């Protein structure tokens, strides 16, 4: 005997033949900020990265095939370099980069919005009081590490397939930080795609 599925759950079924589906999705892309050098990080989401850790874009600069994306929120994170023992970016570096930068979202041929980075809370990150015996330890994250503390667009934006989009982060001048770090941009929303 099959388990009865409540009526209000049926719309969430994942294997309806010949139909499309909309699911929770976050697009993300990462670039390296070079200490005391970088002024602009352009082309977020414009490239398919080698590692899924860096990005989950399947096609550079646009949604592939029949896929669409409804952009509902956006966030920016400062992360330590990959493959090191550093678990978090130092507080003073996060402050310097987040306080001084701004992000521009381009869709098609024009800018759709821009924000200072300090408004783009990522909605995640570590929480708590750090301690290492005999050493100084600090960490910082952009906004409260709480999924509810994510910047939501007053008006969501529907990115249809083959429509180019990208993000660009600018600083007025190169920022002097402790060491190179990674900047990750998060686009939060819903993915529309053909069902499996």
């Amino acid at each position: 005997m099959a388990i009865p599925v409540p009526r209000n759950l049926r719309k969430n079924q994942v294997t309806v033949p010949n139909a499309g589906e909309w699911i929770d999705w976050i697009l993300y892309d990462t670039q390296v900020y070079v200490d005391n050098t970088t002024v602009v990080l352009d082309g977020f989401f414009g490239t398919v990265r080698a590692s899924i850790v860096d990005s989950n874009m399947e096609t550079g600069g646009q949604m592939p095939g029949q896929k669409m994306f409804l952009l509902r929120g956006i966030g920016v994170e400062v992360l330590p370099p990959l493959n090191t023992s550093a678990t978090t970016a130092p507080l003073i570096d996060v402050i310097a980069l987040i306080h001084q930068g701004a992000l521009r979202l381009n869709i098609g041929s024009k800018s759709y919005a821009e924000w200072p980075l300090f408004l783009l809370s990522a909605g995640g990150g570590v929480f708590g009081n750090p301690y290492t015996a005999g050493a100084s330890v600090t960490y910082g994250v952009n906004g409260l590490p709480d999924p509810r503390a994510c910047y939501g667009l007053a008006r969501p934006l529907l990115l249809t397939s083959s429509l180019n989009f990208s993000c660009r982060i600018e600083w007025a001048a190169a920022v002097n930080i402790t060491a190179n770090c990674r900047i990750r941009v998060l686009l939060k929303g819903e993915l529309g795609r053909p069902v499996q």
Partner: protein
Amino acid sequence: MGNGGIPIPSGFSDHSVTVPNASEWVDKVLWDTQQYAAGGQVFLDFFQGLPASLPAGNLTQAGTIGNNVFIIRGLGVFARGSATGAAGVGLGIAVLAAQGVLRLIIGAKDYGVWPIHLLPVGGGVYGAANDNTGLSPYETTNIGRPDPRAGYVLTRPLLIPPNLNFRVRLEWTAAIAITNATNLVVCLKGEMGRFVQ
């Protein structure tokens, strides 16, 4: 139906970005940065000039939104610290927020006056330090929690029509000296109406 037959829920179609010959409303934050001198200021005017860079501000015409329309739904004040970010905000912002007010002027009259204390921008850095090397424990001090939900929201949004002058002024009764010059940012949050691409 959407691309290749994927049905677009009816509510989503309202958010299409490429409707020819139409206008559109998009999320918009207008911001401007001015430096509060260490020796003190009596007032700072915002949105009266073109910013030197995008991080400093995003107004493209001094004092107006140009041919577009802007609805202000919320506003806030944020302390960036020194121009390079090397020096943290410290407690200077606590002093300035406790003793200053923000005045919003649209056209020729006031549309609101608020103590700066009441205007969290709803963003910023959260962090912690167990540190013995000289970093200030107040490094993340700012106005309000770094949470978009904590931003000040207007009970009645204000719609600014095209080409109408507006400005924001931060005022103090006297110049208050603080430890380091601090860049202050005023954010006006809302939506902008413009012609679509």
